[in-house]
């Protein structure tokens, strides 16, 4: 059998090591699939509810037409929807980020109350990946659907 030149031996060794490393990294990332997610979707929260009062993050889309402000002027209520037909009512008192609007993505930090309402201490706005000047802002229907799909990524 012909033996490989030393530099070819090294090449084979490094390539094999890289493949092993890549496989290990991807396996670790796959194992982290659920743990590394920044928030739960409504369906995940409903399927496996956290203990009452335990701090969690809920993320999804703010349902169109669901946003209402109480008479005190600072408490707002809205519905967060996920991929499937699941929705969780959210209550929040405070100042919401500018980008927090109906039909856009939101991440709420807070806890589930015993009456099924998610009480948020803090709201974060999640925007989509589209950058469009104001003059061209008429987002088409299919784009809105795509955005909902992408905001709720990470659920099998």
């Amino acid at each position, binding site marked *: 059998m012909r033996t490989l030149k030393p530099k070819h031996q090294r090449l084979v060794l490094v390539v094999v090591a890289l493949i092993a490393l890549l496989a290990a990294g991807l396996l670790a990332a796959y194992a982290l699939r659920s743990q590394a997610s920044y928030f739960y979707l409504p369906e995940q929260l409903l399927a496996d509810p956290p203990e009452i009062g335990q701090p969690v993050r809920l993320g999804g889309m703010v349902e169109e037409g669901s946003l209402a402000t109480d008479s005190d002027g600072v408490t707002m209520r809205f519905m967060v929807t996920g991929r499937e037909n699941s929705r969780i009512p959210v209550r929040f008192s405070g100042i919401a980020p500018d980008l927090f609007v109906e039909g856009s993505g939101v991440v709420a930090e807070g806890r589930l109350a015993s009456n099924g309402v998610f009480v948020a201490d803090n*709201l974060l706005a999640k925007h989509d990946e589209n950058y469009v000047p104001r003059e061209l802002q008429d987002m088409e229907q299919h784009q809105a659907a795509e955005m909902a799909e992408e905001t709720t990524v990470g659920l099998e």
Partner: protein
Amino acid sequence: MHGFANPKRFLGLARWLTPLLLLSGVSLSAGALFWGLTQVPPDRLMGETVRILFIHVPSAWLGMGGWTAIAVSSLVFLVWRHPLAAIAARAAAVPGLVFTAICLITGSIWGRPTWGTWWVWDGRLTSMLVLAFLYFAYIALAQTAKREAVSQRIPAIFGLLGAINIPIINRSVVWWNSLHQPPSITMGNSAIDTEFLVPLLVAVLGFSFIFGGVMLARMRTLLAILQADARLRRRAMEAV
């Protein structure tokens, strides 16, 4: 390609390529940033803050590109044992770290008005911070290996190991729920309107030229230090 691995020919090429890259990079970047800061219309949702895009995105790409350069150079060094490849890897580390830091800082400034927070520990932000720490570790390791006259293979192996973070950064917004939005630019597809996209790509080109120029300048410096060391050692030998 192999011909330029000869340090003498490399130096001949780098002598005029370094100022050329730096000058064209600075003028392209200045033009793109002026364009992006003053001429581009505001975004439909973010308004004026969208202008951070033109610094944030090129910096993020070059932060990741810097480690890719370290990994490729390290591979070439480990397999073909060419000293110039070790020097190229060392030269890419500092500009890579600077661009990663710019990406993290501008991202934080951008996050406050858009998301409502300076920082969150989601997949994208965390993996990018890990990249910055990897750069610090690589720079310290490469310097120590040089000073202690330990094999340059140690930082090279670390450079290859750290490359696993690059696909993780890239996929972090696809695999996991994150606050950072999914990628705007994917293979042959862009969700960025042309009015934003063109100055962005010019800025990417300009920033890349600056990266290349700084890397070449650092390679020349590192080569000059090596030569000076070798000369001193030769003199010391002659004196004995």
